[in-house]
């Protein structure tokens, strides 16, 4: 897994609407990359739904959320609609899991990302990471708030 202090690997992926999104688009802002295993697994649904509920509070701290999984944009679109969320979802689809691999968040045996959170700061440097012990363990929104307090106090 990538570590705090390292430069965040640049990427360009398509979102749920087929638009290209690059990490560098977020330069000057903080972005939390939310790597998750798969669309439509009940566990992910809860994770992204809960984050959606506290998105305004996270935004108040100057951080945007972006979800990333190996699913295609078409699946992402349907998943977004099913959950009623507006968090952008990026398709790490071809080469499959390429971005997750670059961040050390890919699980080869299962062919998808582990549940990992990566906070990238305004300069494109990794400020904080969280890796779940297993994909079944979901980081609650409290993990994000705790991180933002820690990182924020350094700034």
């Amino acid at each position, binding site marked *: 897994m990538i570590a705090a202090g390292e430069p965040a690997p640049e990427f360009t992926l398509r979102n749920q609407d087929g638009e290209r999104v690059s990490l560098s688009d977020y330069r000057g802002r903080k972005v939390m990359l939310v790597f998750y295993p798969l669309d439509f697994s009940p566990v992910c649904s*809860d994770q992204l739904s809960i984050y959606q509920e506290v998105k305004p509070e996270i935004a108040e701290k100057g951080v945007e959320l972006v979800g990333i999984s190996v699913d295609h944009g078409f699946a992402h679109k349907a998943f977004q609609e099913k959950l*009623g969320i507006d968090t952008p979802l990026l398709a790490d689809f071809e080469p499959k899991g390429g971005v997750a691999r670059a961040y050390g968040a890919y699980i080869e045996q299962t062919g998808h990302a582990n549940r990992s959170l990566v906070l990238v700061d305004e300069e494109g440097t990794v400020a904080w990471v969280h890796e779940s012990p297993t994909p079944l363990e979901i980081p609650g*929104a409290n993990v994000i708030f705790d991180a933002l307090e820690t990182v924020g106090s350094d700034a």
Partner: protein
Amino acid sequence: MPPAGPEDHARGEGDILIVYADLGCPHCAAAWEEICRRPARIVFRHFPVTSKHPRAPALHAAAEAAGRQGRFFEMVDSLYADRARVDDPHLWERAERFGLDLERFEEDRRADQVAARVRRDFESGIRAGVIGTPAMYSPS
């Protein structure tokens, strides 16, 4: 997580079991009867996940409003028992059945204080790491 206190909605006797639940959640509805059969003092905390269950805020507000007239758990039980009937006219029917002052019920369920009360529980759940419902904790 805040310990159970006088502000909480609690029912039953025994060890405390804090339950963060979403009144729009089918899993919670399926589990609710079983949860209530436990020999425990059940502390109900509001955890509406609005993106997933758009009707949840209205249901939590209705339960809270019923609670202001002493009928909190009657409303919760009833909402979980009949998930197909959760529109406003169904809430009014329940309010009448429970003998609530309907005018006051209507006023209360739209009150900012009621929304704030629900939000307070929700935020305590977020801080405690609740990520799905029902989430249960037995304070040791």
